[in-house]
């Protein structure tokens, strides 16, 4: 087991193969649930890249998710070939992240967070108010064939590929020289100058990467759901991945994967069988945060490490 913790690439590859085989074997119900889960994993991972490795806590990550949704939905609706529309979604998100990011990275910590929140709320409001284009609160529906005409299984595999691809991109970036710079700036913003970079530039690059991955997740979500609503750029969609990142464990690469599984799993099960599911979720969130600041991934790691020789 230890090897999995030490060599995330091995673990990741195994997880990928395992997930792919699960998706091939899964029935319709599980296919549906897993597809959604995979999209959330990608979304949470993109936020985790920002928080855990780049030292920026965004309260408005939904903006790029939502713009990914609308970029895709609107272009599909306008008659652009689906294959192109799928590209346009993330592009719109990337573009927005580039602009918002340039403004946000000028600020630190809580002020950064607040500006990302403002950006997301402005995005939400524009989507909500621009009826002629976006359909306002009634959103957009029926703009693309269900599951992009790939069938539920085909679409699920596409989502898995995107999710794994996204995680791989994050991994590669983190291990590349650029990633080292991003990480060291994340740990200590003052250090950028010492490395010969502008702190803002480094943070901006990280912001844009995270934004475009969120855009990919948004596009997939829009295609999966078959709709786009302003909510997708709203507060709830900014908080949900934050909760996942925390539940999974701050500072770890696989945290958001575990976090998304736990969050989606718990809410799914709880809200189905328990009356006060939100209360229980609240208690879980608080307990995990207080007693295991490194989240569920931290717990798993501790258990695995106990079983293996240290050194």
């Amino acid at each position, binding site marked *: 087991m230890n090897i999995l913790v030490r060599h995330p690439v091995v673990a990741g590859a195994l997880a990928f193969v395992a997930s792919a085989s699960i998706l091939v074997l899964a029935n319709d*119900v599980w296919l*549906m649930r897993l597809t959604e889960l995979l999209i959330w994993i990608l979304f949470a991972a993109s936020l985790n890249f920002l928080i855990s490795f780049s030292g920026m806590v965004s309260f408005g990550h939904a903006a790029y998710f939502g713009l990914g949704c609308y970029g895709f939905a609107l272009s599909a609706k306008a008659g652009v070939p689906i294959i192109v529309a799928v590209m346009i979604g993330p592009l719109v998100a990337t573009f927005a992240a580039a602009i918002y990011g340039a403004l946000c990275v000028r600020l630190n910590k809580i002020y950064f967070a607040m500006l990302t929140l403002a950006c997301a709320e402005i995005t939400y409001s524009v989507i909500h108010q621009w009826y002629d284009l976006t359909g*306002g609160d009634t959103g957009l*529906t029926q703009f693309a064939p*269900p599951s992009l005409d790939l069938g539920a299984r085909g679409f699920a595999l596409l989502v898995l590929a995107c999710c794994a691809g996204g995680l791989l991109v994050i991994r590669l970036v983190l291990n590349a020289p650029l990633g080292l710079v991003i990480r060291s700036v994340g740990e200590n913003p003052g250090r950028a100058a010492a490395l010969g970079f502008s702190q803002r530039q480094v943070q901006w690059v990280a912001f844009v990467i995270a934004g475009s991955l969120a855009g990919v997740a948004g596009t997939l979500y829009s295609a999966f759901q078959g709709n786009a609503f302003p909510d997708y750029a709203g507060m709830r969609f900014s908080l949900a991945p934050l909760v996942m990142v925390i539940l999974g464990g701050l500072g770890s690469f696989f945290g958001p994967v575990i976090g998304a599984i736990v969050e989606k799993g718990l809410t799914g099960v709880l809200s189905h069988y328990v009356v006060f599911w939100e209360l229980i979720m609240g208690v879980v969130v608080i307990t995990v945060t207080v007693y295991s600041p490194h989240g569920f991934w931290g717990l798993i790691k501790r258990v695995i490490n106990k079983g293996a020789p240290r050194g």
Partner: protein
Amino acid sequence: MKYRMYVATVAIGLSLVTGASFAADPILIGYVGDLSGACGPYNDGNLKATRIAVDEINASGGLLGRKVELKVRDSKTNPEEATKQARESIVVDKADILTGPCTSSVLLADAAVAQEHKKLLWNSIGTTHRANIDFGNRYVYQSVANSLMEGRALAEYAATQKSWKRIATIGLDYEWPRQTIEMFKQHLKELRPDVQFVNSVWPKLGESNFGSYIPVLLNDKPDVVFGVMFGSASSNFIRQGKTYGMFERTKVFTYASTYLLKALGNDIPEGVYGWTRSPFYGIKSPAMDSFVAKFKEAHKDFPDDESIAGYDSMMQMAGAIKLAKSLDPAKLVDALAAQEYVGLRGKVSVRKLDINAYAPTFIGVTKKTPAYSFPILTDLVRIDGERVMPSEVEVARMRALAK
């Protein structure tokens, strides 16, 4: 009462054992409703009545020789949750037919799922016309008047009020008020060119403080303020309107569903013009009396409009299923259109073109009566769907526009 609602939500496929034996699998109705969240109270009444309808249907032998079962899921008043729950309802629960949405966004999200999975969704609360008319979705039955019809019906009524010459409007800034006010204005200008629309204000969705809107509305000395909002926004508007002397200085014409009247009680002044969709107190028939009695017995409360519409449309659907002898959406739509249905709201026929019911709108004036603990709408005028349904030409035009 809420607690019970929760229990009801959680209980899976709860319906009374009627003693009758059923041959095949039950017909499963997936109730994907906004049980928690902003629409909660409306869905609450709707679900209770739907349960009563299901019990009655089963007591009289079920449908197509099969028992009817209800399986409830909570869409939390979110479109994304609604999409997910509607899918699970069809795929996991194997629902044959869907119902329950309330807000426009949830309704549209559910409608798309229904179309994707080729199951019929019938809607008895939400009023957006987009699914049926704009998108031509053949899997959605709109059993209450849509916002276009409602807007026109209100204009028809307003046109008869000779003293209403200057009208100010207030609507929360989202789909339903936008459409309703737009239609109202358009239609009233046709009917009464002398009517002048003065100020219109658009508080954002979720606004709770109308203190800065009411004086602006009153500033142009309108004869009537036309307000389109629901739920807590409605009650806030009325309560705060009182403190600003709105009711002394102008007439108010607003959505006054039974739920709102019950919630406001004597906080709503007399003499407010209000409209509603299916008031239990405004329709006198033996069927209504027996339903109200049944509802009161079960829930110690009068049924809301959403309850009446829920029960009525469920019964209409049952009739259509019997007639079609099938659960196939296309056949059900044919049967709905062919059926001569007379229910709690009287005769409600269905147009096949857009699967819209010719549902009525009721308009009256609030008044305290000894019979109820809350004011009701009196001097009710019923405007039938036939008078205000968009013509086929209009439907074609709107469909072309939406493309």
